[in-house]
């Protein structure tokens, strides 16, 4: 267990955030000791996103994912079809058991001494296990299976896990964002668990701290005008790189809605948000270049409108905007992006893009091409973002630069609670309410001795600091 850093010199962890001024010390982004503490206090406890069930559709299929700095094997069992997750570290000498990113396996055999595990993580063999000159058949295999996550959840196709047996249920962890995550994982016609994710998925490494893209930049509308100006000038800013895009003003009868930036200071989740003021769904707007794609989505939207005829649509996804699940996942209806910390100054950004399971090929191709145009190093948008993310870290870590603070006071003090999402602070859509909520939760995790101190296991806890 890494010792909890309560004080560095004459400053405590709490002193690095100044709620009155609305600032956060750059030290939190560049200090390796704080990074190590984050891995212990946050990534060992939180529910973390692992992937999507459509990546491993068949018995024996596996992918390698990550929980903090560590790799996990996510595998669909050959017998009971259940998905489980295990630390990718042989129990004998700690060798990485699986060295492929994905595949299908009967067993996982460690290349060091041939300890071998089945798809339930059970140790089923070891080199020389029966030899009278070695184990003599005495190896207690039932005690030496792969280390399994403490809790695992398949939430409408999305796969999540935590190392902490005391963590609350996944739904309690999500709180009022449960409905939004479910909505984002639905097909465009509103049916549950309706997505297939494109494989292989996008993954790339950035020389920056995980919080720069994963914490600070999720829901940061003020950057778009400047950072993405060139893409906007090329009319690539519209939702699908489209014929005209989502121009609500063009609608004959605008669908009543309000846009916000929101943050739950107790849970740490937050982001963009659209509160709809009428049942049903907004009128479908044509937005695709490719022939036949609008026809598909128009029909799907009509079916969804029937499903939601007597219901208000969830506030995220399908045009409502994206949101972040603490600590490092960004959720939208067409992509799940998450940031995998490697060290204080290295992070990998993983993106899963999805499409309706039942979509025909021309629709799948169009959605995939859109995702590639938008995301990743060769996309038009994220390459803009990476320019910022890459340079923030070196420009903030110098002996002088790290003594300065970041400004997070945009909209501070202007937020209000709203009964539509209990406990969540609503603020102007260009404010930094979501970022402040993340830091409230970040501080709570960094200081807490266990989940007993943390909301919602401790229902009375109030983590809001600003």
């Amino acid at each position, binding site marked *: 267990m890494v010792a909890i850093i309560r004080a560095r010199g004459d400053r405590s962890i709490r002193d690095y955030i100044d709620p009155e001024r609305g600032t956060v010390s750059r030290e939190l982004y560049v200090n390796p000791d704080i990074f190590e503490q984050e891995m212990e206090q946050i990534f060992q406890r939180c529910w973390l996103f692992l992937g999507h069930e459509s990546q491993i559709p068949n018995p024996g299929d596996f992918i390698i994912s990550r929980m903090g700095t560590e790799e996990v094997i996510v595998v669909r069992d050959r017998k009971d079809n259940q998905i489980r997750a295990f630390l990718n570290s042989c129990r004998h000498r700690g060798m990485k058991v699986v060295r492929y990113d994905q595949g299908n396996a009967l067993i996982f055999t460690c290349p060091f001494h041939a300890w071998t595990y089945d798809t339930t993580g059970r140790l089923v063999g*070891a080199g*020389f296990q029966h030899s009278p000159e070695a184990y003599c058949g005495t190896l207690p295999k039932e005690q030496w299976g792969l280390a399994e996550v403490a809790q695992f959840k398949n939430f409408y196709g999305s796969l999540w896990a935590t190392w902490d047996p005391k963590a609350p249920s996944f739904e309690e962890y999500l709180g009022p964002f449960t409905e939004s995550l479910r909505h984002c994982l639905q097909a465009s016609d509103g049916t549950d668990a309706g997505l297939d994710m494109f494989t292989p998925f996008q993954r790339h490494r950035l020389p920056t701290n995980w919080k720069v893209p994963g914490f600070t930049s999720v829901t940061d509308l003020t950057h778009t005008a400047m950072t993405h100006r060139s893409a906007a000038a090329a009319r690539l800013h519209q939702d699908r790189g489209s014929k005209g895009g989502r121009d609500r003003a063009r609608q004959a009868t605008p669908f009543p809605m309000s846009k916000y930036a929101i943050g739950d200071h107790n849970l740490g989740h937050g982001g963009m948000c659209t509160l709809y003021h009428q049942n049903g769904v907004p009128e479908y707007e044509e937005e695709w270049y490719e022939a036949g794609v609008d026809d598909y989505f128009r029909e799907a939207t009509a079916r969804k409108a029937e499903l939601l005829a007597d219901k208000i649509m969830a506030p995220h996804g399908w045009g409502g905007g994206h949101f972040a699940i603490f600590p490092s996942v960004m959720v939208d209806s067409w992509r799940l992006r998450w940031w995998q910390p490697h060290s204080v100054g290295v992070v990998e950004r993983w993106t899963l893009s999805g499409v309706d399971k039942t979509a025909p090929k021309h629709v799948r191709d169009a959605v995939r091409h859109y995702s590639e145009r938008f995301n990743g190093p060769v996309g038009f948008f994220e390459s803009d973002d990476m320019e910022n993310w890459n340079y923030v870290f070196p420009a903030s870590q110098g002996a002088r630069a790290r003594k300065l603070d970041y400004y997070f006071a945009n909209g501070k003090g202007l937020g209000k609670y709203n009964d539509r999402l209990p406990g969540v602070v609503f603020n102007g859509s260009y404010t930094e309410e979501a970022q402040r909520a993340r830091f409230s939760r970040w501080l709570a995790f960094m200081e807490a001795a266990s989940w007993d101190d943390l909301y919602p296991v401790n229902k009375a806890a109030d983590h809001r600091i600003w």
Partner: protein
Amino acid sequence: MTEPKKYVLSGPHGALTFMSLPEGTKITTIYGGAGEITANPGDGAYVLVRFTEHQDPAVVGTEEFVFFNEVREATE
């Protein structure tokens, strides 16, 4: 009557041969067991064997993974 094919598991090609032993191959082990391959993971280390003979009677009729250097003989 022709002799069943015996796989050569030693020498420079032994490991590759072991990796591709097909299901149904008859196996004897250096510990006196005998059985039939029910699956081969293709990792060059193990085959899954259903035992028909074993020093531990409880293992007869069950499947176990057998390490390559425990195999005495493999035949068609």
